[in-house]
Structures are given as C-alpha cells and as structure tokens.
C-alpha cells in the first residue's frame, strides 16, 4: 500500500529538501517511508542526508547501462527511512536516461507506504514537471512572499491540471507573525494550510552537518513545526501496483 507525494515549490530557496526529509522522518514514525531526490538537475538531498559520499546513486540507476545496477544499491537506510539520493556529476547527468526514473520509482513503490519525491524547483521542462504529474498528491512548499506564493499557486494549477491532488500548502522559512496570511491563502489552495515553519539557523546548521533537521535539532522550533505539519498529512494508501503501473506507463521524459 503506497501513496506518492511530490514535494514541490516552483520557486527555489523555499527549503524544499529540508522539508522533504523532515516530513519523511516524521512520517516514518507511522509509515514505511522512501524519499527520492527527483531533482536530478540540481541534486542536493545527498548533502542534507549525509550521503555526499554515497557510492551508488539515482544517477547510476539512470545511466544507459543502469539496468545492471540494482535499485537496492542506491537505496540507503537513514534515520528510519529509505533514501535514494541523486549524484551531482555533470557527466553522469548528461549520460542519464530520465526514462528509467519510471522503472526505479515503480520498483520502489512496490515496497513502501509513503513515497516522497523531492521535486525540481521549476516547471520549465517535462522532466521537472513529471514528479508533479505522476504523484498522487503534491505538498506545496512556499515562503510567505508574493513571488514564492505565486509560484506555489502555479504548482498547484499544474498539479490539478494533471489530476494530481493537493495534500496542502506549507509555509516555510517564516520570519515574524504570518497574521492573516494562512487563512487568506487557504481560500485559494485545494488542500489545507498544513502549517508554518519558522526560519531557523538550525535548518542551515543541519544541512552543513549533513543531517536532516529532525535528527540534528529535534527540539528546535522548526523541527517541532515540521512534526505538526506531518501530523496533518494523512497518507491514503493505494494498491502498490497502481502507483507502480502509473509510473511504468508514464510518458517518457525528454533527455535533459
């Protein structure tokens, strides 16, 4: 039984990777969770997850001869969840065949409850939009600014255009009091406002330490807020075969 979530923002710098790993760790207390760095063009999840030296990554699975590599070899048990990092080699990126992402995700979907796809911070290419197209629901991450919220609305409209549901919107890196913004925003998003996470030095320190925030500073205000957000995300299990089949039958993305 599995539900696939795309964690997406549209705009960069919203703390999407921090969010993906925080939600993953919090949900791992109740579910079997797998996190995938689907941002193959700007991979950075490996730095957040202490996997900078990972010998095998998603890039190896996406290589033309990637079928010789076992998905399990690029899957790491970290902090109570499974993590599939993506490498940052430009040469490997150029060699990679994004079409294979479908197979990898389909295989992962067969063996987990919650699949979190850390999505690219853009909607400008077919590869970038694919996690949003294929996921069951999208968790929209935004900072409380007009440009970020406009991009968040854009992600939502892309998602719903493809029949992808909206799990909710999360305000991240919040400075000061949001005032009426949360309730105002709720009128425009298909899902609820999941919560707001304060801007935190702890999040930056965690990234520098190569640890997810919830492992590095579990008692920080930001970590507490992320756990509250996760409590509001109620995965709706589907037959694993459905998700796997959807990914398998998905259109082939173009080469990067």
């Amino acid at each position, binding site marked *: 039984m599995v539900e696939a979530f795309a964690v997406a923002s549209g*705009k960069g*710098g919203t703390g999407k990777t921090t969010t993906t790993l925080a939600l993953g760790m919090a949900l791992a207390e109740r579910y079997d969770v797998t996190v995938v760095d689907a941002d193959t063009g700007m991979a950075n999840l490996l730095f957040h997850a202490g996997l900078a030296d990972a010998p095998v990554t998603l890039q190896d699975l996406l290589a033309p001869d990637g079928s010789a590599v076992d998905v399990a070899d690029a899957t790491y048990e970290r902090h109570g969840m499974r993590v599939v990092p993506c490498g940052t080699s430009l040469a490997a990126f150029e060699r990679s065949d994004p079409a294979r992402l479908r197979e990898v995700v389909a295989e992962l979907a067969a063996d987990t409850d919650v699949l979190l796809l850390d999505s690219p911070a853009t*909607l400008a*290419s*077919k590869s970038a*939009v694919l996690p949003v*197209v294929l996921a069951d629901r999208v968790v929209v991450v935004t*900072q*409380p*600014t*007009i*440009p*970020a*919220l*406009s991009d968040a*609305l*854009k992600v*939502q*409209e*892309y998602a*719903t*255009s*493809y*029949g992808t549901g909206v799990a909710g919107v999360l305000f991240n890196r919040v*400075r*000061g*009091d*949001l*005032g*009426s*913004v949360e309730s*105002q*925003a709720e*009128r*425009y998003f298909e899902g609820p406002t999941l919560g707001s996470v304060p801007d935190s030095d702890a999040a930056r320190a965690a990234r520098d330490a190569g640890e997810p925030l919830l492992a590095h500073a579990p008692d920080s205000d930001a970590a507490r807020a992320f756990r509250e957000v996760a409590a509001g995300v109620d995965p709706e299990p589907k037959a694993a075969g459905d998700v796997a089949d959807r990914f398998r039958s*998905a*259109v082939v993305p*173009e080469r990067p």
Partner: protein
Amino acid sequence: MTGDAPDAAGPSPTPASASTPPSTDRLPRGELVRAGVATAFVTPLSAALDDGLTGYLRIEPGEALLGGDGGEAVVTLDDGVPVLAYDAGGDADGPAALAALAGAEPVRVESYRLPASTLAALHDPAADAPTPFRVAPDAPARELAGDDALAERTRAAAPDDREGPGDHDALAAFLADEERVEAVRADARAEARARADEWGLTDQLDTE
C-alpha cells in the same frame, strides 16, 4: 514622462509630510543617476543598495510601458535601504503598493539622488503620525525581487530602529485581491495545458 516634476533647480515642491504620498508630484526631482528597463526588480534594488543611494526610485510598470494606464510608483531610499512606497497607478500605500507592483516586470526604473535633509521629514517615524507609506526595509527585495540574499543584505544595512509594518502585510494585500489571485491561477492553468501539448503530455491531463 517627468515633465510635470519640478526640476531640482526649480522652485521647491509642496513640502511633504507623513500623510502625503511620496510621489513625483511632491518630491523634488533630484539628480538622475540611472535609468533603464529592468526585467527583474533585483537589478535596480541591488544597485541602489550598493550605491547607498538616498533618494527614490520612480517605477513605471510593464503594462504602462505597453501603453496601458499603469501609472507610476515611487520607492524612497535612505542610504540604499527602502523606506516608503506609493503606487500612484492604484493609489496604494506601503505594503499594498508592493503588492500592486509585484510581478509587473519589465519595469522602467529611474533612480534619483536627493539630499538626505530633503527626505528627513518624510523618513523620520517620530516626526509625524505613523505614515501608511512605510515598508519593511527588506520588503521590496522579498516581495518584488523574490531575492532572499538581497533581502538579507538590505536588512543588515538598515538601522536597527528602522522597522516597517507587519512582515507579511504585502502578501496579505496580494491575497486580499481575489481577482488578481484568480488571474494568476487561470494563467497557470492555461500555461500547464499549453505546455502539456508542447511536451506530449496531453494524455496525462485531467479531462474531467
């Protein structure tokens, strides 16, 4: 475009106070230090900060450049840090002026230098009743440019006592404009469908 604005060497304009909009009708013209069309707000805002410009930016939104009636907006600066904002096109003050300007690129921006003494009465929060035109120092960088690094630099450059209104008032003003938010959503839906066609994803679209 600035034909109605008094020249720096001409007679002094009406003295501004906290309750009168910081518009080009009210401000002395000052010395033009830079002018051009910006495709992103980060360019004129970071240039003003780097120069430590005291004066104002006169901003003409893209729709005005294309012949629409977009009016003009003014953001005043003290040592490169934004203090007041007024959008004459929509008669919007402070945070609401930023909300009105957000996403208006390309914009034509003229940067003018003024003596600090000319702006002192307008900028001094203790001089008069709280002005509705005041913005948080980093609000233009956040809300117009969407640039965290520039916002951080601007905050660092601002005096400690230079507080604006609520941190998120501009976003609240944006969200209060239902018609505008719905337009953003409608544009995104149209874009999603156009790109689906371009990318061969039409079969994946939800047609219900």
